[in-house]
């Protein structure tokens, strides 16, 4: 298991937060995903045996946002 804080680029509104938090339901291996628009951060609790950090980053990119380790 891994818990990591990332910085998120490209968010503009609460709709972006809702879109990204929706990944919690879409990606297997994500236990919880909390996004803060104000801090431009995402706190992700995930099972690193089921999903890698790179896969999460690509999923964020797929939604149109950038993700990097904070």
């Amino acid at each position: 298991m891994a818990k990591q804080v990332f910085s998120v680029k490209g968010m503009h509104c609460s709709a972006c937060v809702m879109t990204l938090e929706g990944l919690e339901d879409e990606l297997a291996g994500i236990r919880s995903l909390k996004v803060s628009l104000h801090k431009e951060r995402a706190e992700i609790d995930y099972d690193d045996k089921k999903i890698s950090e790179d896969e999460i980053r690509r999923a964020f990119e797929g939604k149109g946002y950038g993700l990097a380790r904070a």
Partner: protein
Amino acid sequence: MSFDASTNLLGLAFVTGVTTGGLSCLAVQAGLLATSVARQAETDVTAQLAIRHVVAQRKKRSNRRLTKEQRRRERAALATLAQPEKPKRRNAATPIALFLGAKLVAYTVLGIFLGWIGSVLQLSPYSRAALQIGIGIFMLGTAARLFNLHPIFRYFVIEPPRFLTRFIRRYAKNNATTVATPLFLGTLTIFIPCGVTQAMMVLAVGTGSPLLGAAIMFAFILGTTPVFFGLAYVATRLGEVLHTRFLQLAGAVVLILGLVSIEGGLNLMGSPYSFSNLLNAASVSLAEASGGSPEVAAQPDANGAITIQVYNTGYFPDLIKAPSGKPVSLTVVSNGTTGCTRGFVIPSIGYQRTLPETGQTTINIPASAANGNLRYTCSMGMYSGYFEFT
């Protein structure tokens, strides 16, 4: 109340909404609508731009020297990225319709309360002014956020509660953003009623019936909807044409509306520091310095009586010179007036009343209030004038 009387009342509320309510309320509430529509457009535009950026990056990478197998993988990745994640082209009318639908429901519910608890919900001019200034500041912050001036402006976002977004997301996955924001903002309009809406609210209170109160508010807001929808829809289509510039355009519109809201709030407080009052003061000083007469200033008669006319576009005269320390009997005359100037307020003596469409209303200004500048304004602070006691 008889059935005929009730029907007439509802018909009147609807016609008032169609003829004057739409335009009058749009001036006040358009900010929330613009914010709502802007947020929707913002989501679509930024998502498209972000995808274009990622696609361009991938293409750049794929042009490097790669083996056949690497190129095949890149192409496959590109295809999965560009196609399923492309945002669906949404109907521009959807957020506007949701906003107006929420507004209709919210005001109908408000009508139930008004019919039930009477005049308890009416705000004083100062409370409304503070609310209006608060809304104006929020709009300025929203504009700054749309211009992307500084990260701190991200705090100027109305975010629906997390539990609600989670619920909406899980049960209406694909369209959660289109639903939540305009609905929430549409509901908020009950806190910024314009002068004509306030008149309808008073009417709803007067019925003393939750059912009729709700029906009146429903009929009135339904009447305002075509004007709101038409203007907002045109604005949205324009935004689509301008495409990437739309965020800046929306920011500029919200900025102007924010300034108008703050200006109205300051006028409603009777503040001399509103833009229109500062402009008035400057023009008076300039005219006096050049030796001319600044503008037509009315004066009370020997008995201290003065009359002002109420038009849809303002008050005449808007400057009255009177001796200080002497009471004034002010008669306000409306003649077929239907605009928000009917909501007449003198903030510093706590006077507020919805004037009849046609008729006279007399207000006694006590000697204790007859000093300095005493301002009068419409209930939203859009039109004003003042007494100059010397």
